[in-house]
């Protein structure tokens, strides 16, 4: 997986790392079962404090996307092929999505434009072939 961060950007680095890993899972670059570098290795490669990486991995673990194991390190726990999301997750996500879409509406985008952007964003994701359930769950 290729990971790019903007160290001096407005978004906190731990958030950027978390976001890039979630995107890599969605695009199929990091399928379920694939390994992530250890927190120390990722910190050395990005030239940042390893507590920052720890924080990202901890968020991913709480979100159920990553499994952290003393022996095997950090491993991706689930992806699009792992079935529908856990109970309660969709409700939480819908709340955050509403804010994001509200920004577009407030800036004067039409419903068609908003929907077109959503479709464009999803086309890059890797879904398992017969996936009506997963599609419904995502958008």
């Amino acid at each position, binding site marked *: 997986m290729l*990971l*790019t961060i903007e160290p001096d950007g407005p978004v906190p680095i731990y958030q950027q790392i978390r976001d890039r890993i979630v995107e890599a899972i969605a695009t199929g670059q990091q399928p379920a079962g694939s*390994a992530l*570098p250890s927190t120390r290795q990722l910190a*050395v490669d990005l030239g*940042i*404090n390893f507590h920052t990486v720890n924080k990202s991995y901890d968020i991913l673990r709480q979100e159920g996307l990553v499994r952290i194991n003393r022996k095997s390190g950090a491993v991706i726990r689930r992806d699009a092929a792992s079935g529908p999301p856990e109970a309660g997750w969709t409700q939480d996500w819908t709340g955050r999505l509403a804010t994001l879409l509200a920004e577009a509406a407030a800036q004067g985008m039409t419903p068609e434009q908003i929907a077109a952007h959503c479709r464009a964003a999803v086309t890059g994701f890797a879904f398992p072939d017969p996936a009506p359930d997963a599609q419904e769950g995502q958008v």
Partner: protein
Amino acid sequence: MTAASLTAILAVLFAGVSLWVAPALTRPTLQFGVRVPPQHTGDPVIRRERRGYYWRAAAVLLTSAAAALALAGSGLAGWAAIVLPGELAADFGCFWLARRRITAVKDAQDWFAGLKQRVAIDTSWRTEPLRYPVKWLIPPVAVLVATAVIGAARYPDLPSRVATGFAASGAADRWAAKSLWNSFAKVAGQLWVTGLWAGLLLIIYRSRPDTDAGEEGGSSRRYRSFLGTYARAVLVLVTLVNVSLLLAALRTWQVYRLSGIAAALPVLPAAIGLVILLGVAVRTGQAGSRLAGPAGAGGLAGGGGAAGGGGAAGAVNRDDDRFWKGGLIYINRDDPAIMVGNRFGVGWTPNLGNPKGLLLYGGIAAVIIGLIVVRVLLAG
């Protein structure tokens, strides 16, 4: 000419040529230790300073080589060893001048204004790491063991006084009472060189690769290929240095005796190893910047005009000049890395902002200084 002055001349030539080609071995976005956005790699100041550096460094090389030759030919052969530090200082001056002029224009025109500065990595470097070339450690260790075995076999038969220095004619001119130290100093040298480089390469294999933002995939692949090749060339050099030390030890142990210029024989394997390493460095470039693929090399004489590393998304590498003191020494307290890639020439440098990097550097320096002190004390 004596063996010692031939060694001094070879060192002057090698250092001069290595530093002369150095600007061509780094990627176009690093010019004399200055981080340059891809949009500015063909800037007039960079073309001018590169041209200027090649001329000045060539003049330094020719002057130093001529001085070393003249000293070797005269009765002052011992002074030929003084030329190398002078040459290094002059080359550093050339580097410093180019760096200062490029930095001045970069700051005045604010080259990084409005650019998104990024750090890019390829996580497969960790999840599918490059294998350490363990098999390539066999030849240097084999030479070391052979030297120790020959020494152990010869030691009981050595006379009570052994030669520790050799004159121009190849005849011994310094003697000392036989001791384990002066009989086995060359084996200790082999142990030090082999251990040091095996250890440093281990750290380097675990260090971060130089990856270009906007060109992450390609630069990461080139780095793998570069490290694999360069590490093997380093281990070939270590093998040949050990062969050099073996030849020098055999002379101390009175296995053979050569006179005149032939007395320089022990220097030859190490010199060949250095030429191989330089050849590999020129072929690959620092971090593989001269290997085939997009965003490849800056030409030797050209201005490195082709934009390298500029991704479609307009991502540029982070301007990290503030962590590089004098463009050569890396000090970044927030960076957990122990070693990072050089910014000028091919190789790696420790992060002196990291206590482990400082310890590593201090340790190596202490051993080198210790060896020199021991040598001076023994000679005195």
